[in-house]
């Protein structure tokens, strides 16, 4: 299975070298959680993160399925 991971703002520094600078594709196993992806990409724990899966609110223990688009960003743009 494969998912797309889109990172925003300063989190883009943690994308793999072969990415387009904004997102990357990640091969996952069944029952892979968002937390495991965050660990795999070495995103710093101390940075607050908003998580969306296919544009909807996601949670760190949520499992992903093939084709999902995972967006992760630090909330800085105000509301």
């Amino acid at each position, binding site marked *: 299975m494969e998912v797309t991971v889109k990172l*925003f703002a300063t989190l883009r520094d943690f994308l793999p070298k072969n990415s387009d600078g904004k997102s990357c594709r990640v091969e996952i196993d069944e029952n892979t959680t968002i937390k495991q992806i965050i660990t795999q990409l070495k995103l710093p724990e101390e940075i607050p993160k908003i998580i*969306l899966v296919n544009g909807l609110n996601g949670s760190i223990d949520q499992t992903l399925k093939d084709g999902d688009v995972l967006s992760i*960003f*630090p909330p800085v*743009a*105000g*509301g």
Partner: protein
Amino acid sequence: MEQLKIGYLSTMYHSSHIIKADGLIEKSMHITPDWKLFPTGPAMVEAFAASVIDIGYIGLPPTMIGIEKGISIKCIAGGHVEGTVMIAPKDFQSFDELHSIDHVLKQFKDKSLGTPTRGSIHDVITRNLIGETREDIEVKNFSWADLIPEAIDSGEIAGALGTPPLAVISAQECGTTIVIPPHKLWPYNPSYGIVVRKELLSKKGLLEDFLILHERACNLIREKPEEAATIIAGEIKVVDSNFVIQVFRISPKYCASLPKPYIDSTMAFLTVLNKLGYIEKTLTEEDIFDLTTIQKIHPQPDHYSNPNNLTTTSKWSEVLDV
């Protein structure tokens, strides 16, 4: 120790970030705060409706929409005015060059503008602006303003209206600039105030203590912006103090008071909210505001029009280049 559930936004000039960073509520009020982050004002109004929060840092239009729908909340203090700015890539001409809002908007004919969710102050200002001058511009709402820079970069939208922090992050990420400055979009618009559940109005001591902290934080931003920026950057973690100073400079009007121009500007939103179909009934000042505590805490003239050393340029399209 009593607990206080506080809703806040990531808008970094809200006093919440200073109060939260320094643990001021715990130290001064001996209350345990439960800070809850929201993407936009309308989401916070829903949380008020569900009694998930007691106090919120929120723009007045979503507050008014909530009150009209029967949610039991009131605004007890100000915080900042003119917190909406229009941004676009540099190939669009700015108000500095065209000297007319209509001429700026003409460039966006048959294009889309992005803004936070329906009912947010930015959405209301955007739809009012377009409705007054043009009907050939589409408005696209975003659940989180953080998603807007990429939408500009990808061409999904041509420009956007949102907060000063959005203007700074978008300038960094995709080279946008300010095409209409905050004071030209809606003078004195109530970008945020302190809103509480009506049940809290009887806890006068608690509200006084909270507003004293709020006023001190507003004063710090206005009088010692570098110190405030360092505190805020430490709390936000992903921006530095220069980023925060840039945010301050875009719209430098911070104060805790609720003067007549703030209230008049708020009341002027009623007609627009009605025209947009966001409310049906009208509201009075008494429906929206309770001035009792802030008039005690801040009896002196307001400071919104006294931005001290934060205003450093009159050329708005260049404010992000300094």
